[in-house]
């Protein structure tokens, strides 16, 4: 009798276990592309919400849609369309990043006012305006972003021999310098870096330099094969 009872319990236990067991492939999973799109959207919204809490301007470098947006409190103030771009180095996380510095060969200089009462004559047609205006801004420069990211901004070469030659030089630099820097960084155990090269219209490049004040924050939306997801579990919860 006792054997029959034990046998029955064993059979019941095995049956319940078998019924409650759901094989891994029975759980329905979302296609990889949809899942990543939703995660990216969440990370981007979280990053923008963090920036929108402040009164400061911020930038969205949407490298996927090839546009750069200037925003505040979620309001789009200005948008620039990029002509082309390329990447090198470490993938980029979807988080707010600070602009550490702007680097350029020729920094625009402010004019010093000489006190002489010229203000009264400012509306005469012959008056020359001495001002720190957008046309004085450089069109080739580098934005140094936190997290080891450098964004080079340049313009399409003009139809002049020297400009074209300079462009060949820049292209040569782009294809030869980063691999050597990567190797050097690995040898010296430095933090990985990212280089982004963006070509803009000249006026847009100058306006971007004007608008990009130091300390301003930005979010970079990289192409998917250049995206870094630091913590997957954190991203979906």
């Amino acid at each position, binding site marked *: 009798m006792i054997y029959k009872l034990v046998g029955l319990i064993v059979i019941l236990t095995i049956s319940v276990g078998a019924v409650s067991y759901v094989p891994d492939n029975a759980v*329905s*999973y*979302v296609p*990889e592309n*949809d*899942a*990543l799109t*939703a*995660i990216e959207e*969440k990370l981007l*919204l*979280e990053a923008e*919400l963090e920036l*929108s809490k402040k009164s400061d*301007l911020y930038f969205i470098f949407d490298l996927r849609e090839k546009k750069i947006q200037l925003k*505040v*409190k*979620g*309001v*789009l*103030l*200005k948008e620039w369309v990029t002509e082309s771009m390329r990447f090198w*180095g470490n*993938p980029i996380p979807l988080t707010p990043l600070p602009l550490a510095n702007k680097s350029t060969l020729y920094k625009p200089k*402010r*004019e*010093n*006012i000489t*006190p*002489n*009462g010229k*203000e009264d004559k*400012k*509306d005469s047609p012959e008056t020359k*305006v*001495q*001002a*720190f*205006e*957008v046309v004085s801004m450089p069109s080739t420069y580098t934005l140094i972003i936190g997290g080891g990211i450098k964004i080079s901004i340049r313009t399409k070469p003009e139809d002049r021999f020297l400009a074209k030659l300079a462009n060949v030089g820049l292209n040569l630099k782009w294809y030869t310098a*980063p*691999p*050597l*820097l*990567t*190797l050097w960084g690995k040898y010296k155990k430095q933090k*990985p870096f990212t280089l982004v090269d963006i070509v803009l219209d000249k006026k847009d490049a*100058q*306006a971007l330099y*004007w*608008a990009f*004040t130091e300390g301003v924050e930005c979010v970079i939306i990289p192409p*998917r*094969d*250049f*995206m*870094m*997801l630091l913590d*997957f579990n954190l991203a*979906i919860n």
Partner: protein
Amino acid sequence: MPKGKKILIVLLIFVGFLILVFAALEITGYYLNASNLAFWQKFLKNQRIDTNAYNRLLKNNENLKKKMIGYSPKGVYLVIDTANNLIFLRKGNVTLRQATVSCGSGNVLEDLQGNRRWIFDTPRGEFAVDSKLRDPVWIKPDWAFIEEGKEIPPKQSDERYEEGVLGEYAMGFGNGFFIHGTLYTRMLGRNVTHGCIRVGDDDLKAIYKEATVGTKIYIY
């Protein structure tokens, strides 16, 4: 073999060796970069989300979008583009009016003793209209006298009060900065002011009518 030819061959071998070393370094650099990218791509591809987690994620995203909308300005607001000297009166994503203005010159003024320094930039960021004035009177600050090469009068002196130069209307947005009219209409479109925003008469009237104390101003 002549000595000159020997040197040339040695030189060619040396240059060839350098090119080979350079190529090897370049290929290694490219390989390291590609393997790093492949690591992160593999990491992304290996993640899976079940339908429940996905639905939670979508719902969460909707909530985040609603929160974002909560931060955006209600009613009309002003956007000022200091690079192109433009002002926009907007409501939501619609521009109700656009006008050419004059913004800060970015010039620098120092007093003769070198104790004080002013940079005439229009401030950037988020602001709000904090006062609305009709027929405003300009109370000239110290820099106005220094710029004109004049003696600085006492604070309450009549010399400091100047009527008519700010146009018919002015809207303050903090720290002595105003959106106001101008006598120098020829300079609209140029960066010539001491930080204030000068607007032509008709546009100023329209903006003054729409804006209230508290209207948001976004300057970039």
